[in-house]
């Protein structure tokens, strides 16, 4: 059988602040190692949303961070650099800011908070967000699998089957 896959890419308008790296800013793992050194530092971090909690006046996102690419987008196929909590001073729709969406934020390190992941006491850096950008959902690459008709048809080219056996099969 033959496989063809098309990689589709689409461009989005990315805010300038999100694209701009912050010189000398610590990574999530650096902050987790020695948070006190970095208090009130500005960072640009991004990753995948694990959870969105809506508080009275704020939204609190738990994010699994990844290194960022040149546009400031998380490279989610790389090794995670750790978890953090982002506090945004407005209501974020939890159905939009939902699990597995990619987000990049810029903000200041407020403190750390220790919460359990399973039984592990995990120290989360907590960021007061100043700018944020949720990345558009990517189209999964589509694999189209065409079985060549002559492979199935012993009577080819003399008979014609009543069904179209060149129908696409989708592979996941």
């Amino acid at each position, binding site marked *: 059988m033959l*496989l*063809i896959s*098309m990689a589709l890419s689409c461009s989005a308008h990315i805010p300038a602040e999100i694209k701009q790296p912050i010189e000398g800013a610590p990574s999530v793992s650096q902050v987790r190692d020695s948070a006190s050194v970095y208090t009130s530092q500005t960072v640009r971090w991004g990753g995948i949303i*694990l959870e969105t909690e809506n508080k009275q006046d704020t939204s609190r996102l738990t994010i699994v961070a990844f290194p960022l690419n040149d546009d400031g987008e998380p490279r989610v196929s790389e090794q995670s650099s750790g978890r953090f909590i982002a506090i945004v001073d407005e209501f974020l729709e939890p159905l939009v800011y939902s699990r597995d969406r990619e987000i990049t934020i810029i903000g200041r390190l407020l403190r750390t908070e220790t919460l359990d992941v*399973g039984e*592990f*006491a995990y120290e989360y850096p907590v960021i007061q967000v100043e700018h944020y950008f949720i990345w558009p959902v990517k189209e999964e690459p589509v694999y189209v699998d065409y079985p*060549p008709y002559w492979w199935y048809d012993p009577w080819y080219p003399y008979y014609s089957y009543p069904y179209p056996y*060149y129908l696409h099969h989708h592979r996941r």
Partner: protein
Amino acid sequence: MRYTFSLLLFLVLLTGCASTPEFDTTQVDQSLTPQSVIAEAEFSRGKIVLWGGTILDTRNLKELTQIEILAYPLNSNYRPQQENKPLGRFIINHQGYLEPTTYAQGRQLTVLGKVSGSQSGKVGESIYTYPVITAEQLHLWLPASERSRTSVHFGVGIGL
């Protein structure tokens, strides 16, 4: 319509290639499988194995992370071959924290480690004895969709 398919012989195939992990296999006992380790627990303890499979569960404990795996035979790149018959379940103990959303259910993992004992648990209502491996080296495989997204190669593909 039919005849256009001969053109497909020349269609371009986009496929991803993942880098091959390097494992030091010199001390690995190739004969051991999760099932044989349970059958010969005394003989197997302390042996080095290179196993892999599909992650069933990742549990973060206070000081270590436990990963439950359904083992499959490995190919020459040490990647588990899920289309083969599984070789039984086992548990990996990894000192420290591993991100459970990264070491997520369904992902493929290959581990080099030492047989440290066994542990029993329940699968449904039946009691299952898991060999336990202390991890020395882990390799988490990229899912197929990520592979095609991150590194793209051109080639012509014909196969079954």
